[in-house]
């Protein structure tokens, strides 16, 4: 039996972004075929799970307001089964990490993630949660929550529009729809995983494919990321930086 391609109503499969990653997950998870009985039961369970994703309200800043807007009249993500938000991690399926995570908040995020019951998912909403965003040069901001918890879906934007948030949540639905519950890696956190803070699925991936998270350049103490090189600097600025402070003023006057 084949694993069916995840189907989302009224959006054709080809129109989704990043189908390759999804297919990779299908291949890895269902290596060696799928049992007809457990496979069918899996589909039933995944159908139920995917259409009732309860998120933990974890809104630290701006993105949280857009998340609220998603739940309200105009966008109304109750249409997809996302409308139940929980304030307790024990009752939630996923963390919508909507906002900047600072050093003081990082232990709290880690603990909330650890307290959630399996299966659990993480969505990183907005630039700050993905990479530190506009606060990348700050001394008190975690440069991407991936350093702390494994992330299933990234939703870029600052903040992402409600449409983008819904698209991201539907991508998560697709991911949930191909999971293997029976006869495979069952979602139960063991001691090793609890120590590492990653899901069982993630561990299986790492043992087979290595750490698939985005590569991080290890410089010196190991905390700094890939350096950003800016190329389109205005000419006046370059002169200014190199100490020719008299010239740019002349250039400006000539223009005016």
């Amino acid at each position: 039996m084949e694993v069916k391609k995840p189907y989302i109503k009224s959006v054709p499969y080809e129109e989704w972004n990043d189908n390759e990653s999804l297919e990779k997950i299908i291949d890895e998870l269902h290596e060696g075929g799928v049992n007809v009985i457990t496979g069918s039961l899996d589909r039933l369970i995944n159908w139920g799970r995917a259409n009732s994703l309860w998120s933990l309200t974890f809104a630290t800043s701006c993105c949280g307001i857009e998340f609220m807007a998603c739940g309200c009249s105009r966008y109304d993500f109750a249409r997809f089964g996302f409308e139940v938000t929980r304030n307790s991690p024990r009752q939630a399926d996923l963390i919508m990490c909507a906002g900047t995570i600072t050093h003081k908040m990082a232990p709290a995020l880690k603990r909330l993630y650890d307290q959630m019951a399996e299966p659990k998912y993480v969505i990183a909403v907005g630039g700050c949660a993905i990479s530190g965003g506009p606060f990348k040069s700050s001394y008190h901001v975690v440069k991407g929550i991936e350093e702390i918890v494994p992330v299933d879906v990234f939703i870029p934007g600052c903040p992402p529009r409600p449409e983008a948030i819904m698209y991201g949540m539907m991508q998560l639905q697709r991911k949930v729809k191909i999971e293997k519950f029976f006869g495979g890696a069952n979602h139960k956190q063991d001691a090793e995983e609890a120590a590492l803070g990653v899901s069982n699925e993630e561990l299986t991936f790492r043992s087979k494919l290595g750490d698939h998270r985005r590569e991080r350049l290890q410089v010196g103490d190991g905390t700094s990321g890939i350096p950003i090189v800016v190329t389109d600097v205005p000419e006046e600025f370059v002169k200014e930086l190199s100490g020719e402070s008299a010239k740019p003023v002349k250039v400006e006057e000539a223009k005016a």
Partner: protein
Amino acid sequence: MKLEFLSFEFDKFAKEMQNLKEKKGFDYLVTIVGEDFGKSEGLGCIYILENTTTHERCSVKMMAKTQVCGDNMSSNGTGDTDGQAVSYIPTVSNIWRVADLLEREVYDFYGIVFLGHPDMRRLFLRSDFKGYPFRKDWKFNDKYSLEDDEEPDYGLEYFIDKDGCLQSKQNKLFTTDDYVINIGPQHPATHGVLRLQTVLEGEVVKRIYPHFGYIHRGIEKMWEDMTYPQTLALTDRLNYLGAMQHRHALVGVIEEAMGVELTDRIRYIRTIMDELQRLDSHLLYTSCVAQDLGALTAFLYGMRDREHVLNCMEETTGGRLIQNYYRIGGVQADIDPNFVKNVKGLVKYLRPMIQEYMDVFGDNVITHNRLEDCGPMSLADCVSYAVTGPAGRASGWKNDVRKNHPYDMYDKVEWEQCTLDTCDSMGRYLVHINEMYQSLNIIEQLIDNIPEGDFYVKQKPIIKVPEGQWYYSVEGVAGEFGIYLDSRGDKSPYRMKMRPMGLSLVGAFDPMLRGQKIADLIATCAAIDVVIPDIDR
């Protein structure tokens, strides 16, 4: 406002500050700015004060003295800083109550201790944070740990003993019998990642210790490495519901320092945008009050109408929440051709809707019973704790910056400052409702008369601000939002400091809620309109 500093002798400082309040009537402490003036001058503080009757402002500059803490001989062994060189300034927290938190902020960032302040703990950063990040000689370090922070259960109090030595002693925050619960940092009713450590006696609140910094991003420190146009991008991410006003304050201070003359068109557009933003914020506020008290219908109504306001702004600015619209010398783009028509439609639509919120929620007898006499605060306390904005106006304090220090078009249009004298949460809710009507009035008067002209006054590609210190404030959505700028003539600021709207509001929770039930904490928190990223910066 260009700042001209008063300065006092160190020994007379506390007395002179007392004089300023009692004889000269400077009863509102706007903010305390900590600053590292460089190697030759050292650390110091700038106090910005306002007289609430004449609205006159003054500023005081005070340099810190440095001395080794403890006397090395008979150290009492209670302080963590014994044997270290510590900078100190006498406290003013007994004169203006709001200084309690403001001085802790300065201590957190600069390591200046305040003699006589009973509770010198860090305010934003973790208690195991090493060093003081805003000092110019601080070495950048962004390592972090996932271990829990072991917070001290005491605050240090510094004093000069009879031999002239700097000493410290511990003041316990709790007694052994206290029942302490933490509300936050992850709690749906705190509107973000605020943590309120609450001491309870049964269900009656005895004391509230606020903990901040769960969303502290160090924006002020980042600004010091940025050019002026770059600094603009971060203000929208403070109180994201007041993006326009925040940036208004920042471009305002830079333009004032540079002496930029704006065209009338820019002033009109900015005033209209500010008021649209205020509508957006107040709509979300009235929705959230309803939701926090369990009325979901009113929440959905408010959020529905908020989308209409966002539509109006989005067509011009391109952003829903983060607008990025103002820039130094004008605005980013001219208004959309449909802007005038849409805003007129919005004003027409919104007026009856505000009455609907009152029908659904505000006039409801349950709401009245729940919010009346909840979180009371008198006028005198409001001034002392610097509770600005709608919360202060509900106690009768006429503190609207738009009236007191008019900027842009606010002195050319007719509108009323909304005040009430109920001094409670119900009053705070009603002031917000009334302000929405006033915002509509302001917009109505301006929208038909937007003059022709440039929407941007051309600036040099590299913006340099002349030397000096400036403070510029606007009426933010929840109080006075101001920016202090110290320029050394460079292309990036030497020091910029915000006066956040919410810090003093949260500081006022403790006096408001002592002796009240813990459930009232949630109602008060909802009705006072705090947004945490604005406090933490």
